[in-house]
């Protein structure tokens, strides 16, 4: 018997990295996965991997920066599979900039994807999650818990994810659903690979968030996601779970 037999998982960021690994992991444990991403090609690749292993996945190209699209995507998931048991808010973007370099457009885009999209998809999914007594797992970051030089907008959005998760958990504490976040450290994913290092970087300031251990794999975060989102995590609510090789320990 699989932990996600009969469960429906709505996942953002399903085209790559942690979102892709989580789609593959949950499908392998019996879930029907409704994947969202702005990257159609990457998501089809995820679906092919899921399908090759005998799993079930539907893709919907979705820009979660649009409130309308968030609501349409949640409705499409319910239309396709009949409900939502697990919402995984995984999509996120990051970049490295000196503060003086950050443009309004960059700030808005990061806020739209990392924070606003997460909130409005959650708003759209909540009635369905309440109906099936399911749960939500948000992906925060060590950047939501520690100050990191040269990633101020990213830290701001991830700090927002941390406290949004706790506030949602309190609002729904008397109802039979669970809301948690995972705070990964550096992960071997495109989000990290695509960091362009700016000139005049003081690497001494970056040491605390590089740490001493290897980056995590996307599959490790997916394994933690599967634990927290399964019934094995029944007692875990309102938690921010750090999985970062010790980055936030000091």
């Amino acid at each position, binding site marked *: 018997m699989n932990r996600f037999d009969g469960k429906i998982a709505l996942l953002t960021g399903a085209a790559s990295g942690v979102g892709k690994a989580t789609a593959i992991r949950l499908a392998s444990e019996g879930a029907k996965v409704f994947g969202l991403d702005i990257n159609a090609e990457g998501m089809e690749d995820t679906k092919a991997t899921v399908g090759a292993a005998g799993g079930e996945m539907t893709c919907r190209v979705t820009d979660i920066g649009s409130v309308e699209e968030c609501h349409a995507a949640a409705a499409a998931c319910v239309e396709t599979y009949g409900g939502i048991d697990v919402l995984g808010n995984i999509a996120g973007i990051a970049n490295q900039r000196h503060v003086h370099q950050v443009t309004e457009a960059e700030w808005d885009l990061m806020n739209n994807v990392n924070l606003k999209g997460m909130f409005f998809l959650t708003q759209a999914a909540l009635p369905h999650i309440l109906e099936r007594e399911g749960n939500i797992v948000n992906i925060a970051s060590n950047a939501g818990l520690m100050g990191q030089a040269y990633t101020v907008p990213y830290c701001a959005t991830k700090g927002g994810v941390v406290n949004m998760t*706790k506030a949602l*958990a*309190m609002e729904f*504490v*008397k109802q039979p659903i669970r809301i948690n976040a995972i705070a*990964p*450290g550096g992960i071997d994913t495109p989000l990290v690979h695509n960091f362009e290092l700016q000139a005049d970087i003081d690497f001494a300031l970056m040491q605390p968030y590089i*740490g*001493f*251990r290897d980056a*995590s*794999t996307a599959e*490790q*975060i997916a*394994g*933690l996601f599967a*634990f927290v989102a399964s019934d*094995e*995590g*029944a*007692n*875990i*609510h*309102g*938690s*921010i*779970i*750090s*999985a*970062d*090789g*010790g*980055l*936030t*320990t*000091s």
Partner: protein
Amino acid sequence: MGRYDGKVVALTGVASGMGRASAIRIASEGGTVFGMDINAEGLAATAAQITDAGAGAGAGGTITTRVTDISDHTECAAAIQECVDTHGRLDVLGNFAAISWMRNTPDVTFEEWRRMFAINVDGTYFMCQAALPHVLAAEGNIVNIASNAASMGQAYLAPYCATKGAVAQLTRALAMEYVKQPIRINAIAPGGTDTAMNANYELAADTDFDLMQAAMGHRGFGQPEDIAALFAFLASDDAGNIHGSIINSDNGLTAS
């Protein structure tokens, strides 16, 4: 195939509650359990459940036991030595043993304060110290049991809060000291759990329940099996990137 096949897991507090549930869980996943407690009778009952050939959880598993008073640091060292002498290795140490009680601060005696620190803090630290060379040799890990009391102020529980804050901080400090070595050190911070510890609280006549509301929460107690499931995940290779974390499993107590 179990996640703990071939692994030796030393656990304190195995006579009851989360320690017992975790011993059963680890045995059910193929682990060899070295179980410790000061309560010989409860320890024997846990062992009997595991070695029973019947159909219960963990049945048919492997456990050896040692009655151990972890407040005595020489006992910690002797117990770990016996574990390694008996089973040849030590992969995981789980520090579950702890005591708690509620008192108005004016009523706490020095001897009561010292005893709680001796078990909850001294015992946890000196078990870690004794186990570390073997955990390093096995590239294993340590999981300490902290509490929501480690991060929230709780009325009538000042000594307990102080000991659990100490457990959280010694966990973080050990994690930093060993961050360059291939072992992991983490803690679980449970909220109120349906165990003998919580059943045995005696409340003073003048207890102000308003002050206790934050620590009671809205969802009731967790089950020891929930903590055992998290322990089994965290101490397994599935959690290879989790190090220096204090993981709250408390039904939302620490979210506000």
